[in-house]
């Protein structure tokens, strides 16, 4: 009913927003497929991703092995499928960590008083002045290698961007009429933040997070490529790319398929993220 009312109020815009182009549709389809693969790779293949068979090494893509086999005779198709979960989880985990950390940081800056704001934002400035990947590398050096460590490293590197956004939004929302009204009604500060400031400040953040997911995916794969993330023999796209890089001339399929998987995932996430941003931001020109 509410929908219908809005439709009447702003019919044109809604119809345009509701229409989903083929690009966006396929992006969502790819994401859904990848999510399914990540959740249950066993649905698509019953070949083991880690069992070796030196006699079947370096076979090209074909009927027996759709994506060929690597230098140990492992099935690249099975490895790409089983690599989906760790690879996507790395990116997703990093983004979620970054969103949570960035939100707390931004709120603390916006609502914690002048000193907290100065300290928080100058720290963000310093971190933003460094390339994100460099920052992640630095953090992973401190933490050590491993999936969770890489997740945290990428998250820390992405955090200051989110923190700034949350702070800006929170400052706007804090001065808005309804928050001041709520404050005037004597609402507790904590309740005020959770019930009014946060929900209204968080929208743009989620949109930025969607786009950030793509970036995190790339950085996480990059760190795994350098051997800092998932440890062998467990399959992970970045690590597989790294193993295949010496074989591009002789056995391209070892590196190309995991590379294509990362590319597809990132493009799909970005297209979906832009779509979400356009929907959310609506008429706001960006």
């Amino acid at each position, binding site marked *: 009913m509410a929908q219908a009312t809005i439709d009447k109020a702003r019919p044109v815009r809604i119809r345009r927003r509701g229409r989903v182009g083929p690009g966006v549709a396929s992006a969502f389809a790819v994401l859904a497929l990848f999510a399914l693969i990540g959740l249950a790779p066993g649905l698509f293949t019953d070949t083991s991703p*880690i*069992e*070796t068979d*030196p*006699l079947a*090494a*370096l076979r090209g893509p074909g009927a027996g092995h759709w994506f060929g086999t690597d*230098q*140990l*005779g492992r099935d690249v198709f099975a490895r790409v499928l089983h690599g989906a979960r760790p690879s996507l989880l790395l990116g997703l985990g990093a983004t979620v960590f970054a969103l949570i950390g960035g939100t707390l940081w931004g709120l603390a800056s916006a609502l914690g008083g002048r000193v907290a704001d100065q300290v928080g934002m100058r720290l963000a400035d310093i971190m933003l002045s460094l390339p994100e990947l460099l920052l992640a590398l630095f953090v992973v050096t401190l933490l*050590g*290698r491993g999936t969770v460590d890489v997740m945290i490293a990428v998250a820390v590197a992405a955090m200051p961007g989110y923190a700034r956004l949350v702070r800006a939004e929170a400052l706007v929302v804090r001065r808005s009429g309804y928050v001041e009204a709520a404050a005037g009604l004597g609402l507790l500060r904590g309740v005020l933040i959770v019930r009014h400031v946060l929900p209204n400040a968080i929208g743009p953040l989620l949109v930025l997070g969607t786009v950030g997911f793509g970036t995190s995916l790339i950085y996480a794969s990059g760190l795994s490529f350098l*051997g800092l993330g998932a*440890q*062998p*023999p467990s399959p992970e796209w970045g690590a597989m790319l790294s*193993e295949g*890089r*010496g*074989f*591009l*001339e*002789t056995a391209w399929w070892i590196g190309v398929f995991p590379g294509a998987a990362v590319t597809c995932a990132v493009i799909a996430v970005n297209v979906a993220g832009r779509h979400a941003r356009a929907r959310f931001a609506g008429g706001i020109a960006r």
Partner: protein
Amino acid sequence: MRVIRPRLPRIVGAALAAAFVLSACSSTTKTGPNAAEPAAGPPVKGGSVTVAINTEPTCFDIHVSPQDITASIQRNVFDSLVAQDDQGNFQPWLATSWEVTPDLTGYTFKLRTDVKFTDGTPFDANAVKVNFDRIAAKTTKSQYAASLLGPYAGTEVLDPATVRISFTKPFAPFLQAASTAYLGFYSPQTLAANGDKLCAGGPQLVGTGPFRFAAHTKGQSLTLENNPAYNWAPAGAKHQGAAYLDKLTFRFLTEDSVRVGAFAGGQVDIAGSIPPVNVKSLEGRSDVRILRHDFAGAVYSLFLNTTRAPFDDERVRRAVQRAINIGPNVQSIYFDQYRRAWGPLGPATPGYDKALENTWPYDPALAGRLLDEAGWTGRDGDGYRTRDGKRLSVQWPSAPAAVREQRDILAQAVQSDLKKIGVEVQRPALDLGAFTTNAYAGRYDVLDMSWARFEPDVLRLYFNSANLPSAGGQNAAWLSNPQIDQWTDAAAATLDRAARDRLYAQTQGWVIEHAAVVPLYAATTLFATGRQINGLRLDPNAWPLFHDVWSTRR
């Protein structure tokens, strides 16, 4: 030798040892189909040659650095007392003749009298003494050369052309050690003036070799220039007098694909450490030759810690030895370029025991029976064997920073093969520091290493109880066996080739039979050279010799 970085204790040297494909190798310089030395007319003087290598030395001082690459480059700048040929025989070089006392504690050398360092200082008995004393001095902090001098007691100058080196114990491997670039000679003048600045590389590294060190640009390249006065090449050289080339440039191209690409594109004349995967396609080109050299020294092996459960049980060790499908894995990972190893020594090493070949083939069924016998009969949810509710799991620490030659891939094959018989292999990834500490403390079940040296005495280094890691040695299997000690000590105390061969064969047989070690592969040194390059040879350590090289490209 061949550590990745300076200052690492020697076991890491060993663990990371035999660095790069460039390591010491030897004997049969097998060449590919189109690698025969062509008759390209008479040698041409002049010109320059560029060589791409995969590692930049972290220290250029031959007396300090344990790196193979340092010796490999500096071989062309520094000469040795004697030269060793592919059969393991010694030939005169800076020494014209030598005598060894019957108890092998004293070596007297007669020196050439016409040799001059490139700064004009004459090479004489005093230069030998100054150099050897420097190597042995604690303050030099030698990471490898000092160990080559063994139980060094001192050097005596008998007259300007005669020198005697004494040892506190019989020391048979000395001549071999003296033939390596690590025991090469600096000008005493430069040692006095620049002794502390030699690691950095530069023109202050003054030797007697066919080339002199001209310049080094960190991260990029180093340049050697012709020594026109050179007239004391060893007997094995193809010509006497100065080297043909005016200039020799080494470029550091660490990324395999970049190095191979630079060579394929003609930007460099020679490339070292060719990855096995690229050999076939390069060999197919008519303008390329591949130079091969079999591995000498201790091959890349897994050492099983015999003092820790579960490998204190020989049956478990033997099970692991027989359950790894080594042949096909080595073949497929190294594209038929590296050889599957059957014993702890490489096939080109003097004293290599050929009788071990094919004596312990892949036999997972036998491995399973051995584990059953040892009581590992249960199975847990992940398919691993258990005994008294405990999983059969072994720790094999890795130092990813030091991985080369696709060893990480081979390790995955080992993991997978052992999983098939129910053994779990865990590979904690450690930084080099933690890795070293762990190794010395024996906190591992499996340790992998290779050690390139054209000398079977590496067996003493590896298995003699005097060399336990707790004492700073490389006995990574933690063997304390009186029999092994006696064999390896006796072999180091005799120059009788037949006796040494027998003792070393016994040692090799024992460590395989009792599964203290699982040898995996013997690397092959692979150089690619353009057709314009003539006369390139590799010495028994697989170090390229540029004295005889000429280029037909003007």
